């Protein structure tokens, strides 16, 4: 195989973007990290470790920071979570490890686990040391992994450590999926995602980029490989289905975020409206502020209590000047040629509990850019049906059904994990799914072919 240009060198984020998207949580230096590490109580069967979907042994890696064994600390993290650096920055730790910290129970600040984890991982990257794992003895088995996002990457790492070949296919030119293209730059810079995947690739992973897998190609891969892992994530962001939606100046949150992270967009116009109130909507709204918008609003058809964004994300958005309009629904995009505004109607609760438009409440919210963030569709259509009409793998409302412990689908040769199975959660959830599936596939292959 021809020498590949390292992933982090293949793309860059525009300097003006880098400057405006500085670290939300600045890194620790050693003098700050060690006392913080020493503050950790070293709980037994620690709640932080239980709360972490990948079960990183948090007290263990923290005590290694305290002892000055930084290489061992990074190894402890990576052993449980091959995207440990990305997760240290992207995880909503307030509802995970740090949220579970016992310090909350006696009015003390929880241990800053994420910053400590980043400290250990940054030290590993700065040292130039290789990934602290070797591939397993080759078994001669191979697995095709569809999608090269966090779930597939984690699955591939487990497979390689067990001597199973891993072939990853992704429609994009670079690996990482939403870990690379979809996390707010002030949390996880694009280049950091790629740096971590570059390290993972030392296990010997075959990447196939800009290749979209359709039903016939999938059938081929199924014949060529011993198992298939589906880490395909979710599809496009839903459309509103209203007039004017195709005007210039209507985009979606994932496009906006991927755009500024990969330099195809470095500024936004004056007035931006984001539709939806999930975590991605918040990321898009804050990005719009930092990309130069003077007025950024989030509009949501329900109230604060129903929004799916985490409370701390909402507070962050408010602190950056994002305005929230509750109980409003877009009914049309105004504009001739380009967007001029969004027509909204107020919603009220009806007698039967449903929410209905309030007659005559329509108003125009002027906007130069409308960003949709109302959830992603699934794209499992290519999992073609068999001739008898049954699905290749069993789905439920578009999600692939799996055995949570092994990632196995209803078709024994097919495994899956990440957003396509859970409907869209965090990077760390995808990593945990991929990890379980990697272990599950290797065990299944051994059991299945063991005697052969």
């Amino acid at each position, binding site marked *: 195989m021809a020498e590949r240009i390292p992933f982090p060198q293949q793309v860059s984020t525009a300097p003006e973007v880098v400057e405006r998207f500085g670290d939300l949580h600045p890194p620790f230096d050693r003098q700050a990290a060690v006392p913080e590490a020493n503050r950790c*109580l070293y709980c037994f069967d620690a709640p932080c470790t*239980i709360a972490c979907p990948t079960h990183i042994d948090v007290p263990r890696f923290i005590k290694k920071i305290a002892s000055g064994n930084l290489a061992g600390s990074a190894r402890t993290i990576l052993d449980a979570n091959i995207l440990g650096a990305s997760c240290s920055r992207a995880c909503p730790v307030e509802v995970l490890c740090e949220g579970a910290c*016992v310090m*909350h*129970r006696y009015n003390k600040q929880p241990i800053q686990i994420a910053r400590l984890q980043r400290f250990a991982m940054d030290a590993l990257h700065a040292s130039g040391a290789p990934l602290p794992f070797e591939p397993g003895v080759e078994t001669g088995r191979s697995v095709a992994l569809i999608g090269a996002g966090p779930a597939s990457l984690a699955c591939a790492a487990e497979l390689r450590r067990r001597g199973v070949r891993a072939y990853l296919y992704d429609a994009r030119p670079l690996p990482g999926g939403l870990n690379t293209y979809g996390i707010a730059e002030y949390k996880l810079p694009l280049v950091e995602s790629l740096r971590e995947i570059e390290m993972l690739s030392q296990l010997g992973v075959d990447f196939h980029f800009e290749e979209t897998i359709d039903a016939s190609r999938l059938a081929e891969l199924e014949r060529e490989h011993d198992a298939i892992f589906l880490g395909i994530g979710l599809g496009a962001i839903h459309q509103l289905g209203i007039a004017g939606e195709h005007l210039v100046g209507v985009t979606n949150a994932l496009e906006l975020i991927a755009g500024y992270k990969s330099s195809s967009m470095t500024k936004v116009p004056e007035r931006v409206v984001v539709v939806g109130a999930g975590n991605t909507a918040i990321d898009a709204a804050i990005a719009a502020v930092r990309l130069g918008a003077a007025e950024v609003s989030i509009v949501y058809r329900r109230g604060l209590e129903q*929004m799916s964004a985490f409370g701390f994300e909402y507070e962050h958005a408010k602190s950056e000047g994002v305005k929230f309009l509750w109980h409003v629904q877009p009914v049309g995009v105004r504009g001739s040629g380009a967007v001029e505004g969004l027509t909204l109607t107020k919603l009220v609760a009806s007698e039967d509990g449903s929410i209905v438009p309030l007659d005559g409440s329509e108003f125009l919210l002027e906007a130069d850019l409308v960003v949709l963030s109302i959830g992603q569709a699934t794209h499992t259509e290519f999992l073609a049906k068999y001739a008898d009409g049954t699905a290749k793998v069993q789905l439920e409302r578009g999600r692939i059904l799996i055995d949570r*412990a092994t990632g196995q689908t209803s078709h024994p040769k097919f495994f899956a994990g990440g957003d396509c199975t859970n409907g869209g959660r965090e990077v760390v959830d995808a990593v*945990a799914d991929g990890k379980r599936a990697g272990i599950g596939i290797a065990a299944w292959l051994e059991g299945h072919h063991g005697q052969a």
Partner: protein
Amino acid sequence: MAKPKPTLESTFCGIECLNPFWLASAPPTNCGEQIMRAFDAGWGGAVWKTIGEPITNVSSRYSSIDWEGRRMMGFNNIELISDRPIEVNLREIAEVKRRYPKHVVIASLMVESKRETWHDIVQRAEDAGADGLELNFGCPHGMSERGMGSAVGQVPEYCEQITGWVKEKARTPVIVKLTPNISDIRIPARAAKRGGADALSAINTINSITGIDLDTFQPNPNVDGKSSHGGYCGPAVKPIALNMVQQIQADAASALPLSGIGGIGGWRDAAEFILLGCSNVQVCTAAMHYGYRIVEDMQAGLLNWMAEKGFSTIEEFRGLSLPNVREWKQLNLNYQIVARIHEDLCIGCQLCYTACWDGAHQCIHLDRTSVTPDTTRTPAMVEAESSRQISTTPIPKLDAGSLGRSSAVTPLERIPRVDEGHCVGCNLCSLVCPVENCITMERIDKDLPFESWEERVAKGLVPPGASEVMSTNS
């Protein structure tokens, strides 16, 4: 009648002092200018940096042990006695005494082991106006190689003889400063007492190597790639000092007015030394770390504590803890306590659990949510169970249930249970527990009379093989 307002004014071997807080003979008492600033800050007395024939010091001189982010938990030096001419030190003593007549200045002395030399320095120090003399028989580095310092303190005969020479001449109280670098502090203490010492001070620093640089393999403090054993002090040595203070005060042949030294950094430390019989305390490392200003809280804190306890003077509580230190064989074998975990305070860290399993007697269990008590579940089983759990990031809208469990409340399954029937009352769980008063040790013995090992042996209840010991404490 209300108790009179407490006072810190006290007397040590006849020397009246404004308060019991003295600076020990060390870098903080190197010159008159320093000592006068220290007196302004509130120190009651100062023991001058040891005076003798001027020496040459090395660079560097200090090293320390940090502890979990806190600096200088233990401190080490290889600095020698004063490097200033004797007459300069004596001139400054006179100057300080003229300006601060109510403050105590003690001259710490160390000269070669000749009677005339000691007579001469005693005379000169007293002529300069020193309120007392402290004989440095403790310095463990450098000077000891030249037959001074701890080389004297380690040989009872020398200790007694030199004390005797000094007493022949001295008109002010003579304090002998003891080295801890011996097997039994009472031996040199008794020698000093036989020599006629008026008082003792203890402890001097402990022989130490504080650490090795893992890159260069050089010990610290580094003097051109080499180091030498130094004198260890600071908070780390306090328990050793307290033990030696108690040994001296509990031994009639040793007991004299005692100035406590060793890891004292605050009023609590001072109170402990006084409770074990010291009349005053000397401080060095803490003043080197934070400056003379620390004495303000030492004074205020001790006064507040005295008022709270109803003590008017230092003398009223001096030595109160001495009767409470006994030999092991005199302890009550029928005293029985067990650990109680207070659920409302427990944060669920389970440090007590793992400590009891690995470091004690396997009598704390995680079975609060089991149907029946389960003492067979090991720590490894607990961890294996947890690693099989599938955890996901909660989404507020979808996972109301999982977020509904507030992190402010400790789940019952994380609160350990003490098997009181097997608890031996060792204290370990209560020591590792990070929350004050969460684990208390509570008395469970009922109406059992006091019984010590000594008594059991006397009653013939102990087989001969278990009771005979070689006599070491005569």
